[in-house]
């Protein structure tokens, strides 16, 4: 079970998650400091290690819209948070799968900051309100990448298999 540490509205852009002015910082080990940088209080708490691994950010529709910048995923992955959103923009979803950031598409999700959620194989259970919500499965085509632990090990294995 994990706590909802941030509840967001629809159309959260990658500019919000990782502002463009930090795009010169690219390495996954360096990006976490800029997560939601302009949400100053939240950024400060993230950096202070306030939230245990697995803590959940709840988004609305079209989470991660906009730029293809992968920093928007690596910055969240670095804090070991999970994202549960009503829907997720294509490139952000793909980047999350490629980097192994836990993302859950849950069209009916109802949760407030502080609620305790449990993510099961096909549902999200809100233990605070007692309600449960169905997940939309991630594209089956991507299972190989997820099973390999991300696109880098997946590609590496395919290159090795070719030789």
């Amino acid at each position, binding site marked *: 079970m994990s706590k909802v540490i941030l509840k967001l509205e629809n*159309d959260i*852009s990658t*500019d*919000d998650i990782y*502002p*463009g*002015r930090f*795009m*010169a*910082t*690219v*390495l996954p080990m360096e990006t976490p400091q800029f997560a939601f940088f*302009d949400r100053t209080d939240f950024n400060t708490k993230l950096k202070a290690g306030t939230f245990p691994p697995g803590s959940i950010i709840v988004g609305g*529709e*079209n989470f991660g*819209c*906009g*730029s*293809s*910048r*992968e*920093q928007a*995923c690596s910055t969240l992955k670095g804090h070991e948070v999970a994202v549960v959103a009503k*829907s997720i*923009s*294509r*490139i952000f979803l*793909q*980047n999350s799968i*490629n*980097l192994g950031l836990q993302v859950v598409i849950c069209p009916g999700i109802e949760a407030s900051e502080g609620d305790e959620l449990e993510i099961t194989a096909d549902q999200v259970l809100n233990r605070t309100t007692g309600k449960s919500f169905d997940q939309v499965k991630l*594209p*089956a*085509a*991507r299972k*190989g*990448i997820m099973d390999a632990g*991300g*696109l*880098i090990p*997946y*590609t*590496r294995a*395919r*290159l*090795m298999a070719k*030789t």
Partner: protein
Amino acid sequence: MGMTVVEKILARASGLSSVQAGDVVEPKVDLAMSHENAALVINQFQEVFQGTGLEPKVWDPSRIAIVFDHRVPAESPKTATNQKKIREFVTANGITKFHDIRGDVGGICHQILPEYGYVRPGFVVVGTDSHTTSHGALGAFSFGMGATEMASAWAMGIAVNIEVPATIRVVVKGEFPPFVGPKDLILYLIGQLTAQGANFKVLEFHGETIRKMSTSGRLAICNMSVEAGATSGIVPGDEETVRYLGEQTGATEAISCVSPDADAQYVRTVEIDVSTLDPQIACPHTVDNVKPIDQVLGTKVHQIVIGSCTNGRLDDLADAAAILRGKKVAQGTRMLVFPASSKVFGQALDKGYIHDLMKAGAVVMNSGCGPCLGVHEGALGDNETALSTTNRNFKGRMGNPTGFVYLCSPVVAAASAITGVITDPRKG
């Protein structure tokens, strides 16, 4: 069953006789584009090869394009060092389609690729930039991806595990009224579809208005297709595509275009008549918050921006110069112009547009992404408002989370520069 344009392209590139929406394919990549974020691609690429004993070589250096545009010239030592590393990688790997920070062959990636004839109808184009959708303007299936996915493409020459997207057919008819054009059309369409209305889907553009539209206009509408969430926008290649590639890029070979089958399957058809369309404005802070100009007239503007991969082309600068010639940018308003490429800049110089714009008070900057992504030039002050021909108005987009960004066409931006408030160019 008949196929859409993208289905046909993906079938060909995947070595299959036919595919349909939902199939999983691994198309060969015809062109792979990156900009400064190649720094991250290189990092991920090298990581792929770690421990394999294999030499980290790209699959085909002639099919990789790298264009510096996001932060040119570098705004920081960090960016300059990233650019330096990329230059070294380009040289080591023999990548020829490289556009450094230059006043002759430099520019924004989404102008450079068409301008140098790197894209052909039927190509599979991938790019580490969400506006890679632009190149659908030339009848290619062109989509954005992250840096790690690009690293995988550089290593294997394919896009791995691509789900064939469903297609929305957009049929556009009617003649644009004066001072209304492709930018207004795409803003209107995004307003109708919403910011996620085309998520995981392709927008395939048809109709007499599209057939008559220049490649420049088609680039603008395909560029912004991603703002409705689309994987790609695409205008099936036609006479205009062949004309553009021949006249503008010097292509000499026979160009074959890909058209959809008459019985292709679409998830939806959207019809638009532009003959009664008003100038459209996307209001803060989402691109689908689109209103006809009447509803925002008189809004005070501190910064006007004309440029970007959406609207920084020669015809855009011509339209702006025609309005500003002999006029002055209002006191209290600053106007920044970013031509889409060095070539466009040079042409605009030769034709006198740059002179007209500067004499009116505009600051003409070097070609690049400039203030569109809020990295270095042209940040907004606290609570300031920008009116811009760029493609995004998200909170913080122009470098300041307290700023407000409205999106419009070049003629609306130019007319508003004179008054300092959002102004209808039809009433100027």
